[in-house]
């Protein structure tokens, strides 16, 4: 009997974590998600900035700044508590990462396994510039030959 009760409890717990309706999981049944802002505007601004960098773990890709989920509200209160307790932004982030994993940070970590994620784009652009260089060089060579055979560049300016 106890096992059954435990199973039902686990089921309900897991059901809370399941994604909501197929579309936007935005405004959800309103519980108390109002978080009292900090009195000090500088600290409050820090809290707001931090909110945008942390992911709402039960939502579909929203930050805790955007989400109305109760968990997001709890996290917003938590970071304000920690800011008032004197923790730095990095301390708070490390605390949350220790609890929830790198998943909670909107910015992916720069590690070995995210090498291509972070450096791929720049590498792609560099390779592309190289390719363009080759294309332009080849074209200039042809242009030189064309000029030797006296071809005119008479393509007018407007498309």
């Amino acid at each position, binding site marked *: 009997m106890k096992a059954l009760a435990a199973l039902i409890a686990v089921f309900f717990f897991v059901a809370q974590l399941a994604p909501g309706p197929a579309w*936007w999981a935005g405004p*959800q049944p*309103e519980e108390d998600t109002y978080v009292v802002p900090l009195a000090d505007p500088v600290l409050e601004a820090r809290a707001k900035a931090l909110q945008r960098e942390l992911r709402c773990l039960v939502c579909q890709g929203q930050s805790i700044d955007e989400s109305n989920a109760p968990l997001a509200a709890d996290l917003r209160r938590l970071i304000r508590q920690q800011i008032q307790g004197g923790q730095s932004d990095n301390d708070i982030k490390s605390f949350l990462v220790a609890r929830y994993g790198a998943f909670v940070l909107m910015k992916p970590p720069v590690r070995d396994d995210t090498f291509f994620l972070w450096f791929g784009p720049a590498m792609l652009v560099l390779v592309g510039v190289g390719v363009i260089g080759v294309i*332009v060089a080849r074209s200039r060579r042809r242009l030189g030959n064309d000029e030797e055979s006296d071809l005119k*560049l008479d393509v007018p300016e407007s498309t």
Partner: protein
Amino acid sequence: MTGELGQLALCLALALSLVQAFAGFTGASRGNVRVMAMGRGAALGSFVFIALAFFTLMFAYVTSDFSVQVVAENSHTAKPLIYKISGVWGNHEGSMILWLLILGVYSAAIAMTQPTDNTANAELGSRALGVQALIAIAFLVFVLLTSDPFGRLYPPPFEGNGLNPLLQDPGLAFHPPLLYLGYVGLSAAFSFAAAALVDKRNDAAWVRRARPFAIAAWTALTLGIAAGSWWAYYTLGWGGFWFWDPVENASLMPWLVATALIHSMMATERTGAFKSWTLLLAITAFSFSLIGTFLVRSGVLNSVHSFANDPRRGLFILMILFVAITAPLTLFAWRAPKLSPGAAFDLASRETGILLNNLLLTAAAATILTGTLYPLVLDAAEGIKISVGPPYFSATVVPMFALLAVLMPLGPIFMWRRTDWRASLYKLRFAFAAAMAAMLLTLAILRPDSVLGLLAVTLGVWLIGGSVSDIARRAGSFRKLRHLPASAWTSALAHAGLGVVALGVVGATSWKSEAIQVLSPGQTMNVGGYALRLDATEQVQGPNYTADRAAITVMSNGRIITVVHPEKRSYPVEQMVTSQSSIRTTVLSDLYVVLGDSREGGGWVVRAYVNPMAPFIWLGAVVMAFAGFIALGARLAAKLRAARAGAVTASAAAE
């Protein structure tokens, strides 16, 4: 009866698509005018039947026919009519029918603009219709096997489940159709490119046929993305308009490649340059559309936006994707070395500019794809979960956009093949001065705390200034403005439009003010120069919801400006609560007021934001789309003129 009619229509559309594919390809390879005509007829017929299926589905929704399963799952008798209609595409099955409908529209357009002889041009179009038919066949089979909207529900329920209240918005009427007209429309360029790869004669001629379709698709996609962004902005209740959400990225990637495509097409049509790049871009653009379709519907990605689906559908689309990408690329690899290069050009030339432009746009698209898929890949490969959110894209893609923005005003000024770059840069001196002035003003008056914001303002003014000086220089006087060629206006407006968007984005993100406070009736809060006083709240009844409606007086400097009425709506059928924000826009900025929860003791949480220049984001997109319309209109006008001239000479010859 309607369900079966729709089902039959889909099957007939499939049959006609098979005919279209067969006739399109064999007619072209044999040069047989009659078979090619059969292909055209099949394309039109297939379109008619898909339209029939679409309107049959719409009829089922409008009459609340709950014996059709998708209607029961997504509709309700009390739903307002406009949402019964637009709710047709508010779910996976219905939106696939819309997808097929738009594909049919483009196929029909290709068929109707086809020459009826057996010239190379006609054969090209015939093969293009064949490729369109193959795409239609693939997706019709997909729909019939895995996503049939005409499945019956027996016994039919008395009432449906209703539509997600967030979708009960005019945005649903515009955003998906525009978006689909965009990225499904890229299939036309894809089909012409694939057709051209088969036939050697059409190396550059295909561009002339395909370009209007590419521009039309790009214009629609620009408006579709803007509509989606605006819809998110006023509906989600916190003033955000872009979240780098996977589904948003799925629409942005084809847009970036389509932009590169229309520029590359310009070069190919002009000097025959970049034939292989243009082919590749046409194939890539639609491939990104298909990738997007896959990402949104397969359920592999975590998004507020995605349709919830079973993996069978994902697998099917993946197979289609695989064939659609590898087949043309194989053709391309085989044929590309044989393509002749275009006219030679120097380092300082418009061609180089277009190459850089294409590089940056496709690199941005590739980066967005990487960022979107990386969490998936890492999870599958190593079981590690990470998030790739806005900070990543800001760090990687935004610098590419910034670099693009720097180069953009140079494009219309640089000449083809060779340009005196010093003289060209000199022509932009006023724009440069304006940009520097804007930067210094921003530093002095607004004291921005982010480099990005400063850069965005500078680049926005640079883009707008570059376009203005381009037009001014070409016209020379106000009188001559009327006689400028359309092409001058298209580039100026499109580039300036992007500048306007940049200014809007920086205003709405860097300089927004926000305030959240609990107000009792009579209390006031301050935000960004406005004072907001909560006067009263009342309960109102809507067609399918009840709402708490607040009356909030907006004052500035003691003067009353207006009264706004944000609402919190409760939809009993769907069991959801949504916020209807009140936005008061002065075109130069938005005041955005949201009613939050009620607190014990009679107070209400009120959230208010002031978003300076936010309307520019969407106005800029409209300006860009307007440029696209001008481009299309100019072509149409030129065609009509040529037709009339042909008729005149024909009648003159007859006399």
